C-alpha cells in the first residue's frame, strides 16, 4: 500500500526540488509574472514572456513554431480567447492550468487509483485461490 502512494508524494517533492534548485531558486508563490531580461546562455522568464529565441535541441517537429509546440501554444491561446476574450493572457493561463494542472493530472490520478484497486483485487483473488 505504501508503494502505491509513493508516486503521489514523489511528484510534488520532485516539483519542489526542481523549482528550488540552482543558484537562483524560484519563490514558492509569485504574485505577478516576472519580467526578466534575455540571457544568451540560459532560458529565463524572457523566453516565456516573449517566445524563446534560443536554438532548440529537439527537432522542429516537436519544438518548432510550426511543430507540436507552436501548434499547442496557438491552440491554448485560441481557447484562452474564447474563455476570456477581453483579458489578453488571462484566458491562456487559465486554459493552461485547466488542461495541464487539472484535467490531465486528474485523469492520471483516476487511472492510478483504478490500477491500485485492480492490483489489490488481483492479489486478493490469487490468495483466495491458493
Amino acid at each position, binding site marked *: 500500500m505504501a508503494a502505491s502512494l509513493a508516486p503521489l508524494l514523489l511528484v510534488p517533492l520532485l*516539483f519542489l526540488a*526542481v*523549482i528550488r*534548485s*540552482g543558484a537562483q531558486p*524560484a519563490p*514558492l*508563490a*509569485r*504574485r*505577478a*509574472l*516576472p519580467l526578466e531580461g534575455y540571457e544568451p546562455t*540560459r*532560458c*529565463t*522568464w524572457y*523566453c*516565456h514572456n516573449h517566445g*524563446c529565441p*534560443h*536554438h*532548440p*535541441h*529537439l527537432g522542429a517537429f*516537436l*519544438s518548432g513554431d510550426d*511543430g*507540436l*509546440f507552436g501548434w*499547442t501554444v496557438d491552440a491554448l491561446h485560441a481557447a484562452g480567447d474564447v474563455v476570456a476574450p477581453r483579458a489578453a493572457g488571462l484566458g491562456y*493561463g*487559465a486554459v*493552461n*492550468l485547466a488542461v*495541464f*494542472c487539472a484535467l*490531465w493530472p486528474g*485523469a*492520471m490520478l483516476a*487511472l*492510478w487509483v*483504478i*490500477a491500485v484497486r*485492480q*492490483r489489490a*483485487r*488481483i492479489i486478493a*483473488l*490469487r490468495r*483466495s*485461490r491458493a
Partner: protein
Amino acid sequence: MTALALAAYCACVDFMLHAARLFGFTYRDANALLFFVVWPAVTIALAAVVLWQRATLKKLERTTKAPAACS
C-alpha cells in the same frame, strides 16, 4: 482564486525553466519533451496497465467462479 491560479501558473513555468537549466535544454525543448514525449508515454503506460489488469481480473474471476457453477 486569481492569486492562487497565478501562483500555480508561475510555479509551473518556474519548474519548466529550472528543468531546462538542469538538463541543458531550452525552455521550448523542456516543454516539448515533457508534454509531447514523457507525459503522454507515462499516460499510455498507465492506461495499458489498467487494461492489462482488467483482462487479468476478468480471467481470474471467471476461473474462480467456474467450479461453483459446476457443482
